[in-house]
C-alpha cells in the first residue's frame, strides 16, 4: 500500500492543469497498491484553489497559505514537513515541480525520479520510466529511499478527470522559509495569451528561425495557428532571436508536447527540438529542404517555401473547417 501526496501547482489563485497530471499519477499508483492520496495546495489563495481540487478522489485536500510569488525556498520546508507522512510525493515536471521537488527531497533524505513518462508497480516496488539523452533512451529506475519524490511529464500523464465525491479540506501549518532575507521575488511577468496552453493543446504549430522576424510570426504564422485553434510553439533559434517569448520553446530545454497534430514550420528538427515533440500523434513538416532531419519523424512533409505555403494552408484549413 502506497500513500501519495500530490503537490498542486497554483497560479493566480487557481490550480494549473499540470496538477491533474500529477493526480493521474497518484491515481495509478494508489489504485494498483491499494493506498490513498491527498493533495497539497500551497501558495497564495491556496484555500480557494483547494475548492477546485476536491472532486478528484483525494482523501484530503490540504492547504498552506503562503503570500507572495512562488519561490522554492519558501515552499519547500512546508512541503517537506507534510511529505513525511507519505510514501511518494509527486508534482508535475513543470518548471515549478523541477525547481521545488529536489529541495523537498533533500530535506527528507529522499531520492528523486524526475520527469518520468511512466510508472509501473512491480511486486512491492515502483518502477519509473524516464526519457534520457533528449528522449533517445528510456531508462527504468527505482528510488531506494523510504520516501520517494517524483515529477511527471505532463504530456505523458493524461490529466485526471473529476471523479465526483468531495475531499475534506484541512489547513496545515506553514513552516518558516529557508534562506530568509537572502532571496526575494520582485515579481513574475506573466505573458497572457488567448490561445490554448502549449502543454494542453490538441494542435501545436511551431515556427523556426526561418520565419525571420516577430512580425512574420504574427502575420504569417499566427493566422494558421488560429485557423487550427492551436497553441503556438517555436524552436530555440526563434526564441533566442527574440521573435517569440521563451515560454513558447519546444524541446529538451523548453516544453515537451504530444498533441494530436504538430506542425513544424521552417524548423530543421535538431535532436533537441525533436526531444520536445516526437511523441506527437501526427507530425507535419513544412520545409523547403527535403533533407532536413525533421523528415525522420514527420508523417507528412510539405516541400515548400513557408511564405507561400503557410498563407495557402491557412485558407485551405478555414475552407475545410467551414465545410465541416
Amino acid at each position: 500500500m502506497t500513500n501519495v501526496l500530490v503537490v498542486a501547482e497554483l497560479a493566480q489563485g487557481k490550480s494549473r492543469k499540470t496538477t491533474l497530471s500529477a493526480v493521474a499519477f497518484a491515481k495509478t499508483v494508489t489504485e494498483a497498491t491499494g493506498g490513498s492520496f491527498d493533495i497539497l495546495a500551497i501558495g497564495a489563495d491556496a484555500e480557494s484553489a483547494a475548492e477546485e481540487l476536491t472532486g478528484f478522489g483525494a482523501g484530503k485536500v490540504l492547504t498552506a497559505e503562503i503570500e507572495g510569488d512562488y519561490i522554492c525556498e519558501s515552499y519547500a520546508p512546508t512541503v517537506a514537513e507534510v511529505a513525511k507522512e507519505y510514501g511518494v510525493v509527486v508534482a508535475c515536471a513543470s518548471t515549478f515541480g523541477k525547481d521545488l521537488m529536489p529541495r523537498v527531497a533533500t530535506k527528507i533524505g529522499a531520492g528523486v525520479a524526475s520527469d518520468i513518462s511512466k510508472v509501473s508497480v512491480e511486486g512491492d516496488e515502483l518502477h519509473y520510466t524516464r526519457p534520457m539523452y533528449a528522449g533517445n533512451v528510456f531508462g527504468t529506475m527505482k528510488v531506494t529511499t523510504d520516501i520517494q519524490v517524483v515529477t511527471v511529464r505532463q504530456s505523458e500523464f493524461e490529466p485526471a478527470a473529476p471523479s465526483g465525491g468531495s475531499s475534506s479540506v484541512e489547513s496545515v501549518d506553514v513552516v518558516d522559509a529557508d534562506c530568509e532575507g537572502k532571496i526575494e521575488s520582485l515579481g513574475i511577468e506573466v505573458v497572457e495569451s488567448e490561445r490554448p496552453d502549449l502543454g494542453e493543446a490538441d494542435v501545436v504549430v511551431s515556427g523556426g528561425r526561418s520565419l525571420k522576424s516577430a512580425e512574420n510570426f504574427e502575420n504569417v504564422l499566427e493566422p494558421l495557428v488560429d485557423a487550427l485553434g492551436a497553441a503556438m510553439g517555436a524552436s530555440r533559434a526563434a526564441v533566442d532571436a527574440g521573435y517569440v517569448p521563451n515560454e513558447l520553446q519546444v524541446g529538451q530545454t523548453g516544453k515537451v508536447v504530444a498533441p494530436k497534430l504538430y506542425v513544424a514550420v521552417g524548423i530543421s528538427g535538431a535532436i533537441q527540438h525533436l526531444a520536445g515533440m516526437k511523441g506527437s500523434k501526427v507530425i507535419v513538416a513544412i520545409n523547403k529542404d527535403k533533407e532536413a532531419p525533421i523528415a525522420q519523424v514527420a508523417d507528412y512533409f510539405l516541400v515548400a517555401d513557408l511564405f507561400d505555403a503557410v498563407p495557402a494552408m491557412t485558407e485551405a484549413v478555414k475552407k475545410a473547417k467551414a465545410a465541416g
Partner: protein
Amino acid sequence: MKVLVPIKRVADPANANKVKVAGSEVSHDGLEWVMNPFDEWSLEAALRLTEDASAKTRTGEIVVVSIGPKAAVDTLREAMGKGAERGVLVDGEDTALDSNVVAQILAKVVEKEQPDLVLMGKQSADGDSNIAGTKLAELLGWPVINYASHIETSDDGKTLTIKRELDVGVQTLKVQGPAVITCSDRILKPGTIKNGVTPADFEYPDLGDLNSRLSNLKNIMAARKKPLDELGLGDLGVEPVRVDEYVGFELPAGRSGQAQFLESVDELVQKLQSEAKVL
C-alpha cells in the same frame, strides 16, 4: 568574485540518436566525450561575470570541478583553455554517480573552496535529471535560482538581481550570495550579464551555434600549466549515498512509417482531413 563551475563530460549530445543499449547498460561507443552543453553555458556566463571584457582582463576567479574518471581532465583543461583559473577533478566512475551523489560531493568541494557563487547547468545532457543544482543548494543552506536568463551584480558583488524563465513567465529575484544558479539557454544573449566592470555598452560577439567561447592555441598551452587538483572521496571526507537504481534501458519505439513527401497544400490539408483525421 570567486565562482565554482561544476562540469560533467557527456557523450556528444548532438549525436544522442546514436546511443545504443547493450544488455543492461547504455552504450555510446563511437561518440566523442564533450563538455555538457548546459555546463558550457554556465562556464561562459561565469567567464563574463569575472572579467572586464573590454579591457580583456580577468577580474575574478573561476574554479571548474568535475567528478569523473581520470579522462575528465581533458574537459577541465578545455574549460581552463577558455579562461577558468583552476581545476579540481574528483575521482568517480560515471556509472556510480547520480544527482544525489554529485550534490553531496559538490557540497564538500564548496566547503573547501568557499566560492561566492556556484554556476551550473540545469541538467546533464545524458541523464536529463535537472536535480543536482537544487540538491546542492539545500545541502549548503543556500538559495537556488534555476533557469537564470539574466544576472546582474551589485558593485560589491554580494547582491544579485536575477531573471529566470518559468513556464508561466519571467521571474525577477533579488538574491544575497552565496547562491547556486543554474542557467537557461538565454543566459548568453546580449546584455544578459552585468558585472559592473565590463562597460554596459560592450557587446559580446554572437556565439551562433557555439555553447561557449572558443579558446585559441595560446590559451590551450597556458591551460596546461594551470593548477589542477585531483582528489579522492577520502580527501573530501565524504561517503556519498546513491538513492536510485536503474533496472534497465530501452530505445524508444521508432515512429511507424516514413514521411510522405507532398508538393501541394491542398493535398496536405486533404490528407490531414481524410487520412490522418486530425482536422
